[in-house]
């Protein structure tokens, strides 16, 4: 994926003038169909960078909303109404995906065929195996103790141990996020420098691995939280 923006050349459905995938025909101003496979970054005329200024993204979202929203096409032809629906739904999908840094990088990797969006890895990263094992043991002990009707003091001790372990995983989550943030910066710099495919692939693989670790830890923390809430 060398080019930072993918544009598909086409011809305006209304006046037959040439266009390059813009929202509106440069010649007659009519709304244009969405070329198949237009990606979210291109939709916002943004480079495929991972550090995005939220205020700027929102500004673009609002500007495009004014132009594309179906409210402004109620009295237009049926074709234009359909296109407005298509483009404005794509706008909203794109904004929803790009405004959150995690869903943004997941999208980038999904586009590159590296992962399925919203995918959750259930396999423990090897370097966490030991701690995960300990955590699961504590969880089991708490469950058994609750079933056996152990004393409050005993339960409180087990809770405390779990809470400490949970905090340690929370800490790890923060580390993963910080690391991801760093790789985002490296990715953006690589784009600016016109880096080769090998470097890009390497960065993407690293981000993919960090995302897997992140989703694993998040699930773990969520299940501990649930267990503590029930206990």
């Amino acid at each position, binding site marked *: 994926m060398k080019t930072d923006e993918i544009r598909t050349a086409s011809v305006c459905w209304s006046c037959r003038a040439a266009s390059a995938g813009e929202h509106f025909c440069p010649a007659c101003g009519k709304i244009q169909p969405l070329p198949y496979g237009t990606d979210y970054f291109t939709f916002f005329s943004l480079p495929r960078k991972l550090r995005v200024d939220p205020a700027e993204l929102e500004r673009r979202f609002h500007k495009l909303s004014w132009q594309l*929203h179906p409210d402004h096409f*109620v009295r237009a032809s049926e074709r234009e109404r359909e296109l407005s629906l298509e483009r404005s739904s794509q706008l909203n999908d794109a904004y929803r995906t790009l405004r959150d840094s995690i869903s943004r990088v997941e999208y980038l990797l999904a586009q590159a065929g590296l992962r399925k969006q919203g995918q959750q890895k259930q396999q423990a990263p090897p370097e966490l195996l030991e701690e995960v094992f300990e955590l699961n043991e504590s969880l089991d002990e708490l469950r058994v103790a609750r079933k056996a009707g152990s004393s409050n003091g005993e339960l409180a001790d087990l809770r405390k141990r779990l809470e400490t372990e949970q905090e340690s995983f929370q800490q790890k989550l923060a580390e993963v996020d910080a690391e991801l943030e760093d790789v985002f910066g490296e990715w953006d710099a690589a784009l600016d420098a016109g880096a080769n495919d090998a470097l890009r692939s390497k960065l993407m693989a690293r981000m993919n691995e960090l995302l897997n670790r992140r989703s694993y830890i998040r699930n773990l923390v969520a299940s501990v939280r649930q267990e503590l809430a029930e206990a």
Partner: protein
Amino acid sequence: MGRVVGIDLGTTYSLIALFDKATSGPRCIPGPYGETLCPSVVSVDANGSVIVGEAARRRLLTQPDRTIYSVKRLMGRGVADVQDELKIFPFRIDAGSQHVIRVRLGDRVFTPPEISAFILRELKSWAEEYLGEPVDRAVITVPAYFNDAQRQATRDAGRLAGLEVLRLVNEPTAAALAYGLHEKQRGRVAVYDFGGGTFDISILKLISTGEGDIYQVLSTSGDTHLGGDDIDNLLQSIVRDEMRAEFGLDLTQHPEAVQELRKALIGAKHELSSAEAATVKFALPAGGVYVREITRAEFEKWIEPIIARTMGPVKQALADAVLSASEMEEIVLVGGSTRVPLVRRTVEQFFGRRPHAELNPDEVVALGAAVQADILEGGVKNMLLLDVTPLALGIETMGGVVAKIIPRNSTVPASAQEMFTTGVDNQTGIDLHVLQGERELAKDCRSLARFQLKVPPAPAGLARVEVKFLIDANGILQVAARDLRSGEQRSLEVQPSYGLTNAEIEKMLEESIEHAEQDFSERQLIEARNEGESMLHATEKALSQPQAAELDPDERSRIDVAMAALRAAMAGTDYKLVRARVDELNQATLDLAERMMNRALATALEGKRLEEV
């Protein structure tokens, strides 16, 4: 083309409004008697005429089996969904109901969209009378938390009433639009909309941009079965329990008395919004009178759990918008139930801010709908509304698990593409089940539709069908499929799980054309005559009671004159005159009614020792 209007199709009341170009503002249109609120009550009389609004509401007392209120609770729902409601609401569901509920009114049977269409038709006629020109397009409001089936049912009702529904707008959003125009508000706004049957909370951000103002909904939550109705039902069950204990009386045997009691209790509820206490006096069908003073404190203790139920969705909406209560800059109250002082106090305490209630909470939603109607007409150009879908959209996968494809609170229109293939050789169809809801399992979510993708026979896994799910600006789902191997669009036959099919709507439309629409004033005349009839009947009944003998001759002759005048008016064709004569007779019989009530009271008190009273 005719005019475009905004309609608030409410559980208890409905209203119609239009955007007045002269004043650059919306206004509600009054009905034939000057009221802007049209009770959402429909009645069918013995010769098949349909009566809507105030006249129908009066018939709740005389003809409860031919009259229906709160039909909005049945919109877009299946028979199994409404079992709880049936314990409280006097809906007579027809035994033949399947994926659409059918309600019996006298000897006729209607679906909820047809009944709602009668209300819309009535409002449409108000506007046409007022404007002197036809009205054929409308923006109709729905609770923000309405699901796809409930929205479709509302749109069907519009179609059946001869209206092109330009847009369904969420009620709290409409209210925000009306407020924004009125107060020039900016910033983060929470709209707390507690109506007759539904509760919604919406969190919005109002932004000024170079092109104009954007009303962006950040999140919404609610309960489509929580409203003033629940307060009324609670009061009824408390009072009926007391009656059973005190008089050994079971009111279920007296449907007319049930409606009479409901009316009395709603009156007391309204009174308690300003007074510290209200007294319910109710003449029992078997003789005797139930008298009960309800204090504000007692009332608030009773309803506190109902009000508390609104706070769950409020907290959820704030969490989804990633905002805290103190970050909200404006709080707007909408809906009649926000007149209850406990509701205001609860909201004010939670947000730590005094809520806005400058605009009439009954009218503000209809006013906002009229603003949106004008935006769609190209009138107001500097306002844009960005709303969200209240519930996640998902598809059923292996093991009955739901895969979410569009999360809740996504700005609409929103879409998602999914790829499907075959699992066995020569399979010619792929079954899909689309659902709405937050839960993990299909059985806990709301089924929207099932359909089958047709594919040519081929080895397993070879087919590639891309399905595009799109939630449009009305919050309604559209589905399109494309065979990626052939590039062909695949047609889909979507069988809605709840709701009318296109063919059913067409058939109903044809039938409604056959039953040619009555002229507006003709219909008003029929309604007024019906009302006169029941007034005469009630008066004659009262005059046959022993207490009537106590009337002094002057009073008696005033009543006789008023009755004769009403009969004369009913023989004519001026509906306004009939209404005026009904009111006069009502006035003339006030003393008689009072006397009868006192007499009933005295009878009830006779034989009781003083300290018991």
